[in-house]
């Protein structure tokens, strides 16, 4: 945690300085008769910089041992697979479409990560894709991305 706080403090400090600098550089601080569009962003950046500095200094001084905040071993692997599959799903949304994507995503997670049998996996996948299609496409008329195959 101590380590993470140091990194977060430094990153937030840099972000805050950039934020305030951009506010002063690009947007008017004071407009006709009142504060301009750069006024509040500038002060938000200043306040964030102050808090980030406090976080950073506090973490430097802390003697508490740095507890790990990311899981190790199996937990990290599970997290990586779930996140990876989700990112792949979103990245390929326009290629494979929502329906096919849903099925592939569930097969990847249920069959290959959790080790369910094909029957359970395909049953859940078919039901989910069906409900999804019914609720969003038929009822709410959301045009989902479709695959190159047309569904």
């Amino acid at each position, binding site marked *: 945690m101590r380590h993470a706080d140091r990194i977060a403090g430094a990153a937030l400090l840099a972000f805050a300085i950039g934020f305030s600098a951009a506010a002063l550089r690009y947007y008017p601080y004071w407009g006709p008769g009142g504060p301009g569009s750069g006024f509040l962003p500038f002060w938000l950046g200043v306040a964030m910089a102050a808090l980030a500095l406090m976080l950073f200094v506090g973490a430097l001084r802390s003697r508490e041992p740095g507890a790990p905040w990311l899981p190790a071993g199996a937990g990290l692997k599970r997290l990586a697979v779930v996140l990876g599959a989700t990112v792949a799903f979103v990245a390929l949304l326009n290629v494979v479409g929502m329906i096919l994507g849903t099925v592939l995503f569930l097969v990847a997670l249920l069959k290959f990560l959790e080790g369910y049998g094909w029957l359970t996996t395909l049953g859940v996948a078919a039901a989910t894709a069906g409900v999804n299609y019914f609720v969003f496409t038929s009822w709410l008329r*959301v045009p989902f991305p479709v695959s190159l195959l047309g569904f």
Partner: protein
Amino acid sequence: MGFSIALTPFNLLMATVGVIVGTLIGALPGVGPVSGVALLLPLTFGMDPTSGIIMLAALYAGSMYGGTITSVLINTPGESASVVTCIDGYQMALQGRAGPALGVATIGSFIAGTFGVMMLMLMSPALARWALSFGPPETFALMLLGLTTVTGLTGENALKGYISMLLGLMLSMVGFDIISGDARYAFGIPEMMDGVDFLPVAIGLFGLGEVLVGAEGATDMRILKGRYGLRDVMLSANDWVRSRWAIARGTVLGFFIGVLPGAGPTIATFLAYSLEKKVSRHPEEFGKGAIEGVAGPESANNAASAGAMVPMLTLGIPGSATTAIMLGGLMMWGLRPGPLLFEKNPEFVWGLIASQYIANVMLLVLNIAFIPMFVRALRLPYNILMPLIIIFCITGAYSQKNSVWDVGQMLVFGVLGYAMKKLGYSPAALTLALVLGPLAERALRQSLIISDAGLGIFFLRPIAAVLTVAALAAAAVPAVRALWAAVSGARRPPVPAPED
């Protein structure tokens, strides 16, 4: 007039869907009312706003009932407002008294929920009329108060709470400025010019972020076997005598805690539990299956969830994290939350209030008669539920504007939500700040335009002064504590972050 709206077949159906889904969401560990409301928000876009809020409010009430089931039977709170119920509820279940534990929670919840709606009905119009006289300085001071109290009370670390809040305010600056028309921090990307959208952020932080935390470990739940059929949940005369005043105290306490901006159901339950322990004639029984320890907090959380709607509807500042998401929903439906809501959209407000009475009756029946059914639903393994929630996050984020950009945004905030949760930041404070940011900025700038005394205007007008001082005081308490912690390197013992 409200009932004629709430009783239309479609609105009744929506209330039914809300209470059933809400009870399930409350019962399932890992999905709480905040994630539930965020995930179901996209479904409401095809509806009339009144039907939409009826469903979401019924879901909120339902989740307060449902959380109890898991606390009592598995010793795992289904949501954070049922954490204290585990203490005595699980002990009761171990002694074979799961039925009365669930029964008293349901009856207490019903009394508290109904009382809460009644108070909501009586208090709100007067509060809204009073708030009508607010000018920009009062509005800004009120929002400041909402922001500082929410931030001060949520999360284990006040410094990180304020960092979360500032991050939310900074994100709310992105996009077209309402007054000057400047496209701030958009970097020439058209999607950024509209600002950071509330819905993908809420779904990401509370839906995907929550699931990623759960994805780390395969959870295994053991459900305590017991009898909780219709006859078993009935209370004995002795149980009723012991719990009736606990229900009354929990109800009144819970409602007023809920009304306070920032203090939602979770805090109400903790206070109700310690109150019961203090007034009890046999405090030694607490922790060993005292029925008052279930009755008080379970009543308090329902009263508080109704109370939290008072500031949301009348002042436009939410009383809890869940109502913060609802507030975002209101704005997406094109309604302007605040005192004018009662004048301009009476059908919306009264339809909502009437439907809450109906939802509480439905929940009473549902939770007395159908507990075995909900227990069966708990057997759905988390590792099947988890990918389903992710798919729901993706479709939900996509459906508002049919945009893959929004899905990407949801993904980014999902990862951020995971990190925030693991590192002790407050996603609730970020979300609230993102919702209130543009409104607060407008009020601030209008105030400074009409002011001759600069920032002094917030101290020269009486109502604004009281609100500003209260906001600063709310900020000062944890700020002093945080400063002390930063200087001395000492740490307070962690308090669970409320998620409601």
